[in-house]
């Protein structure tokens, strides 16, 4: 990969443990994410990948541990605060408004950036109109970037799955995030759709310098595009490092392939 300038640690996860009653979803997980890097979290089904993402995202409150974002340490955060700090995410099983157009769906991603209130927007008074034009222009850039111009006015529910995933990514990008959390962006896609998605992830990272944390199931894909990989298994971290190191790690191999004892 070209000399992408990877910066300082932007997100530091320390000793996170998460329990649901007696079930230990995550046990003492620590890793960091550097600015501008593509960081993957992999692991077999039920390893705790999505739980990890939900902790960073503020959806789950871990019982132990801390998360440091840009030098500020948090123990409890809600998802709105996280979003306001510049962390956006996509969802494993798409959470789009099926009946709304692609354009409107991505526009919802601008919600946090809108300064005018509902009243102004409804009556088109004050800065509302000018603001809408600015946001629309930004969204159009995303539509162009993701090459979905042909579907601008199409209701999302009518699009094939791979394109819906792209719209989901578009909505996250509309927040102009510093850190983008992608929850299985390639799940359920065919090979061609996966390649497209890989290209967009690399492009987002390259073009906007966005730091990307992605969860993925498909080892092959992850190894190709990530700078560093964390491997989880049964809620524990079993590996962390560059793709090649991780691939050679015996614990990772046994978690994925099983070993004979």
């Amino acid at each position, binding site marked *: 990969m*070209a*000399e992408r300038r990877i910066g300082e640690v932007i997100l530091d996860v320390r000793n996170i443990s998460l329990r649901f009653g007696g079930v230990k979803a995550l046990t003492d997980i620590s890793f960091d994410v550097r600015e501008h890097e593509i960081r993957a979290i992999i692991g077999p089904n039920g390893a705790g990948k999505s739980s990890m993402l939900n902790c960073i995202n503020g959806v789950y409150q871990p019982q132990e541990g801390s998360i440091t974002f840009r030098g500020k340490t948090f123990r409890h955060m809600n998802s709105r605060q996280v979003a306001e700090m510049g962390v956006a995410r996509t969802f494993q099983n798409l959470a789009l408004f099926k009946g709304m157009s692609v354009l409107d769906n991505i526009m919802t991603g601008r919600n946090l950036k809108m300064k005018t209130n509902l009243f102004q927007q409804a009556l088109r008074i004050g800065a509302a109109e000018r603001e809408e034009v600015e946001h*629309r*222009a930004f969204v*159009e*850039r995303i*539509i*162009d970037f993701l*090459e979905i*111009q*042909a579907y*601008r006015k199409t209701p999302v529910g009518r699009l094939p799955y791979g394109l819906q995933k792209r719209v989901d990514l578009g909505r996250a990008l509309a927040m102009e995030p510093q850190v983008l959390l992608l929850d299985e962006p390639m799940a359920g896609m065919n090979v061609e759709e996966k390649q497209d998605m890989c290209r967009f992830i690399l*492009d987002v990272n*390259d*073009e906007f310098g966005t730091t990307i944390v992605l969860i993925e199931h498909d080892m092959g894909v992850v190894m190709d595009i990530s700078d560093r990989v964390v491997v989880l298994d049964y809620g524990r971290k079993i590996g962390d490092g560059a793709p090649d190191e991780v691939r050679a790690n015996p614990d990772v191999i046994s978690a994925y392939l099983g070993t004979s004892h």
Partner: protein
Amino acid sequence: MESTFPRLLLEHAKVRPDAPALREKVYGIWQTLTWAELAALVKRIAGGLAEAGLARGEHVVVVGENRPRLYAAMLAAQSLGGIPVPLYQDAAAAEFVFPLQNAEVRFAIVEDQEQVDKMLEVRAQCPLLARIWYDDPRGLRNYSEPGLASLDSLIEAGTAYERSHPGFFDAALAAGSPHDVAAMFFTSGTTGNPKGVVHTHFTLLDRAAAGARFDKLTDKEEVLAYLPPAWIGQNIFSYAQWLATGYVVNCPESASTVMIDLKEIGPTYYFAPPRVFEGLLTSVMIRMEDAGAVKRWLFRRFMDVARRVGPAIMDGKPVSWADRLRYRLGDVFVYGPLRNTLGFSRVRVAYTAGEAIGPDLFTFYRSIGINLKQLYGSTETAVFVCLQPDHEAKADTVGIPIEGVEIKLEESGEILVRSPGLLREYYKNPQATAEVKTGDGWYRTGDAGFLDAGGHLKIIDRAKDVGRMADGSMFAPKYIENKLKFFPHIKEAVAFGDRRDKVCAFINIDFEAVGNWAEKRNLPYAGYTDLSQKPEVYELVRECVEKVNADLAADEKLAGSQISRFLILHKELDADDGELTRTRKVRRGHIGDKYQVLVDALYGGKSKQFIETQVKFEDGRTGTVSATLKIVDVKTFPVLRRAA
């Protein structure tokens, strides 16, 4: 027309400075470039090219979709006496090697990263290629190859050059002559290397203007440029005629949005190959099937009216007032909305060319009030040779020779053309030039055809494929095959008859169409091979073949090639098995050899024949398919002498 492309540009900039010249949809909004703005842009790019050292008569490669700045780049090159060489944007990198070497190209102006990558890939083989400029910088930030720069930087350099060399542009224009070479188009030869077709400003503009006069085009036309600019058809419609008449050319947002953009622009002058018209019709039909019962009823009812009287109304023939009223109603309820959905509300003139168009398809568009016509021409003739006049459009001819064109038919049936728009030569290929251009200025088209009673040219086949029957009458296999293929149930056909006493044919059924047909009749079948050999299917195909025979009988010259016997093949002809070319043309010779036993059976009078064939699956495995094929005789008709 005694002018050059850049001189016409300046004229438009003077006469209609604020009128739109080009529009492009960017970030969802149509952006306009006026003639004055375009002229200013062209001057700057020309300045940049001058500073880079572009010499008169030097080739500049331009690769990309229809983009305003690429059009400006072509004009800029022409301003300095340079020769733009547009190449196909979807070609593989290796295909660029020959044109770049052949035309000794130093400069390339390309659209985006994709094209830059291809240029860089072949750079080692094309050491002359010194500078590459790109229009869209996306993804190119980290490229540091020598000589690679953005079009913006070229424009910047040109602005500085303009300041330090005032008057360079006008001087360069004054030095150019209409008989200088204006552009070179590489034709994709099916064998060997492509050939560079050399055209001057005069040849292109003369034909562009003749075509514009024929259809009374004005500066008010709207055109959508969506086919590859490297293809002379697009180049004539959106570049030569654009400058010759001063109309507006619209560039779609992306390849996938063409249909949406078409609807938004509503062009008045439109061009598309038959496959585009077919695709549009299919999408309409599919949507109609999903429509409500009332809409479907209205559609069916009024389409019947359209089929019956639409073409006659289009041709200006007398129609009873009751039918006129019905058609008028249909226009309100069905045809008008349909034209709008297709993006043809404002179309005054629409052309199709490139391959034969099915009569049903052709009539459909004419019957709903779209003035769809056919034309005949090629890269070598700067397109316009024959055009169909309004009110005289027929599905099986390509129109009358237009002003300046002379047509001569060889003994073999080959069509020879003489017009002011003929190519000057094939670049660096005097042998190929001599093969197609005769000493007294005729161009051999390689097509076989004849003029019908109304003076319309009828193309029947490539001249080299036209054979003779044993009795000496003309045998044009593709003409017959096309007629068969126009039936929706027939996917491919292969006709045999050269040096034989009768014509026989292989038929491939269209699995989807015939499958549906069988399902509706509760006809069970196990698969393609089984379906193809059903007696009911043979009966269905026999009716089609008989209709073709009846059609052929109406034509004195072709009546001898009526099909006497046919069989339905047990497998689909496939490019992977070498039976079709990659562009889905049947390889008649190869098929004849491969299925020799079947040909022998057809001519040997057998009523069935066993055949075993090896097939290649898409994953590379091979297998065999075997079947006993039935062979059927078909009724032929006596020649109908034409009244004329």
